[in-house]
């Protein structure tokens, strides 16, 4: 069973079709980078997986559960697919520790004490243990995003979805987030990452999807694709992004 399987998935906002009959699968352990020009449907693709966007047509399976099936409990899918957002979206009324512990308490049914016992080592892992009691507005963007990654990991998902995790960060803060993401890769997590960080994709990615106008234009090994761009669109994209 594939971790994620797109089966002829179409997504439209009104008359605007943003994903055209996508057909591909992501297997356990893959680290898939999704790149492409803005407006090509990368983020929408990601958001369809955990049903933040309902798909318009086709079927989309996450660990065998079809998000488009009304009998599917969407919450079960979301518990297995942690998500990291461009704008972090940490809950502003909870401390860093509270943010990470929250999902564990509600989704995994742990007590506050048990949840914090799970959350604290995760904060340590992302290098934020010394900021555990700080509130999101007291954290830098890079720190907030590291806490957000810990929050998503805390509920113990099988899959991690990253939606432009470094795009809102100053260049010098991106590195600390990428370092944490590299740790997540090394832990063997299945990941789908929408990003413009091409060198990071080349370094840790096992697969690269190049999206263009709602279609997957290229699908292959990041190093090979970037060493010898198979088409002009991708070659232009690589030039523009640098």
């Amino acid at each position: 069973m594939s971790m994620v399987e797109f089966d002829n998935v179409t997504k439209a906002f009104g008359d605007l079709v943003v994903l055209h009959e996508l057909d591909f699968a992501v297997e356990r352990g893959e680290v898939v980078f999704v790149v492409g020009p803005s407006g090509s449907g990368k983020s929408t693709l990601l958001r369809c997986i955990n049903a933040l966007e309902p798909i318009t047509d086709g079927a989309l399976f996450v660990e065998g559960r079809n998000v488009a099936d009304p009998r599917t409990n969407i919450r079960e899918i979301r518990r297995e697919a942690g998500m990291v957002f461009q704008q972090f979206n940490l809950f502003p009324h909870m401390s860093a520790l509270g943010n990470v512990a929250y999902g564990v308490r509600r989704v995994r049914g742990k007590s506050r004490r048990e949840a914090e016992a799970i959350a604290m080592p995760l904060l340590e892992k992302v290098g934020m243990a010394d900021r555990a009691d700080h509130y999101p507005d007291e954290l830098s963007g890079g720190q907030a995003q590291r806490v957000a990654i810990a929050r998503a990991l805390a509920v113990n998902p099988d899959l991690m979805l990253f939606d432009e995790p470094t795009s809102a960060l100053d260049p010098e803060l991106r590195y600390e987030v990428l370092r944490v993401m590299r740790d997540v890769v090394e832990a063997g997590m299945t990941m789908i990452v929408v990003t413009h960080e091409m060198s990071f994709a080349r370094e840790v990615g096992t697969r690269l999807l190049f999206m263009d106008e709602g279609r997957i234009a290229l699908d292959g090994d990041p190093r090979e694709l970037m060493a010898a761009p198979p088409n002009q669109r991708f070659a232009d994209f690589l030039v523009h992004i640098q």
Partner: protein
Amino acid sequence: MQFDFSVIPQALPELFAGARLTLYITVVGLLGGFAIGVVAGTARAYGNRAVNAIAMAYIELIRGTPIVVQVMFIYFAMPILLDVRLDALTSAVSAIVINAGAYIAEIVRGALLSISRGYIEAGKALGITRWQLFRDIIGPLAFRRLVPPLGNQCIISLKDTSLFIVIGVAELTRQGQEVMASTFRAVEIWSTVAVLYLAMTLTMTLALRLIEKRMKIL
């Protein structure tokens, strides 16, 4: 012009009794109004079309009619129309409940809709239930935005209780008039009544400032 301030201490027990009743009507009325406001405001923000229409009809009906008419309707018209007889105090409390409820509903709706979609999506993405999302994320964040306009409504409702003089509830303004009728000291009595209202509204303002300060975020 001659003032006789000695009437004030004599009048104070009656005026204090009136102030107590004013506070009672305000506090009980606002508690009920808050409950209705949360329900109606949530219906406006998240309800389906039918629920939304009901909430909107209620809000527009109440906001579009004067509170004096509303309390007269409850006290004088309801017994004829529905054979429901409420005493003056209950009518007064009910008028604040439905009146403040309509205004608070709009405050609640605004606060709910002001919550950034990002926080809601972050909650959803964790796999929590809709109720948990509302109770743990949207509710607490919206409440912080609620406090300043809610304070405003508290003060308005407190002062609105003075209009219940029309159904003879022994609230502060009514008590002031009673004392006036026996002493004829308008300046002394109405000044005292004004000071008592001011003391109550300023206390409310102060309490709300404290609440706002304690909720530092947003």
